[in-house]
């Protein structure tokens, strides 16, 4: 087998990796906003639930979370297929870290902005979505970019609950060929190229948001 022949299985794995990463970034972002907003809410129950969620997922290893959802949860009668489990756990983890980003950015909106909104009699939710969020979201983007890359790299662990992602394919290929150097070099290059695409997309979104005179670069970076 030459390295060219390694490409087919590795590409198949890369597809799974990209799918899992994109899906869990998407659901993770939703969770991040939900939990991040809940954390800043004056409703104690809501912010309490969000706090527990964030602490639990930030404070435990991803691998153990995966095993718990994959091996322990079925024991109480709840079981999912590996891919659903992988996406769920990664979404929850990314969401927990993202929630802290959302919360931090919302808290960083100058209080004077909230007072102006109050003086104009905006409701709390209107203030959140039309005053705070548009200003905060730009501040979130660099951190979100890092989280997206982290998420991609974390997907490697789902190979351990028998998902045929890039890492899983690399492992099997190496077991057959014993050609560790070539297989793992190609795998590294594969992850790196996916990461480059992710970075590019996140940069693009940030620049889109930052474009125009509303947020002069000097004021932020």
């Amino acid at each position: 087998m030459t390295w060219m022949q390694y490409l087919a299985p590795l590409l198949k794995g890369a597809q799974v990796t990209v799918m899992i990463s994109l899906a869990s970034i998407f659901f993770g972002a939703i969770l991040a906003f939900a939990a991040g907003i809940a954390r800043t809410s004056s409703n104690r129950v809501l912010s309490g639930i969000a706090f527990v969620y964030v602490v639990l997922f930030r404070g435990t290893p991803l691998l153990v979370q995966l095993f718990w959802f994959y091996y322990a949860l079925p024991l109480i009668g709840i079981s999912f297929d590996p891919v659903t489990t992988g996406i769920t756990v990664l979404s929850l983890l990314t969401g927990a870290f993202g929630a802290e980003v959302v919360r931090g950015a919302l808290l960083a909106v100058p209080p004077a902005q909230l007072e102006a909104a109050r003086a104009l009699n905006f409701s709390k939710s209107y203030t959140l979505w039309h005053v705070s969020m548009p200003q905060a979201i730009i501040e979130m983007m660099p951190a979100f970019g890092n989280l997206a890359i982290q998420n991609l790299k974390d997907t490697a662990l789902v190979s351990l609950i028998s998902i045929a992602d890039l890492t899983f394919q690399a492992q099997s290929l190496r077991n057959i060929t014993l050609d560790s150097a070539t297989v793992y070099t190609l795998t590294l290059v594969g992850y790196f190229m996916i990461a480059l695409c992710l970075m590019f997309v996140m940069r693009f979104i940030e620049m889109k948001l930052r474009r125009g005179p509303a947020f002069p670069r000097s004021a932020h970076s």
Partner: protein
Amino acid sequence: MTSIIRFENVTKRFGALTVLDNFNFEVQRGEKVTLIGPSGSGKSTVLRILMTLEPFQEGLLEIDGISYHEPNGRGPFKASEKHLHKIRSNVGMVFQSFNLFPHMTVLRNIVEAPVAVLKMKRDEAESRATELLRMVDLYDKKDHFPSQLSGGQQQRVAIARALAMRPRVLLFDEPTSALDPQLVGEVLGVIRNLAQEHDLTMLLVTHEMRFAREVSDRVCFFDKGRIVEQGGPEQFFSNPQQPRTREFLSSFLGEQAPSRESLRRVQ
């Protein structure tokens, strides 16, 4: 008596610090009142309480006959968001640091609240905003963002934004203190014109003494959370009764160079 604002024995504390101690103060409908006084005397606190940006601990406060304490509300000093909404619909505020929304154009800064809060139709709100922008002489900047305007221009937009909500009471907290000296005049010009409006009640905190004398119906000197002396502007400035007032006014005319600058500027 038709007082639109009535503080009755209002006490306001920040932790152990009592800023207002049994504070009594009334403003008549349409009256233009200026609050002056040393830093930390509680002038901003009075405005911020009126704008519902600060709660207070004791006493009674009414605006246009509505109590800040919700009748039969949750506890004596609390009010629901709905009640606060009703109170705020009477009041507008212009801040020292303008506080325009940086992500909205000038026009949207003004239109946003009438559409979102008063449920005004967008084109109706825009034609009213156009009127207001002409009034503050900034119609040509309507599609600019706040970061593209000078401080004086931003403050004029902020005044238009507050007026778009048609408040009965308009509060100004040192509206020119953050401005470069050469920009103060244009903002005072706009406020001077507003002071001609009979129905609008104005409460102004300022260090521009000459301007206060010119536009106020009444000047109140504030010290340590009390009104030490008040009166019509002529009598107040030409013949202050209290030693503390005289001391304060003379410090203004005396060694404080920037203040003298500002006095000369507004004549």
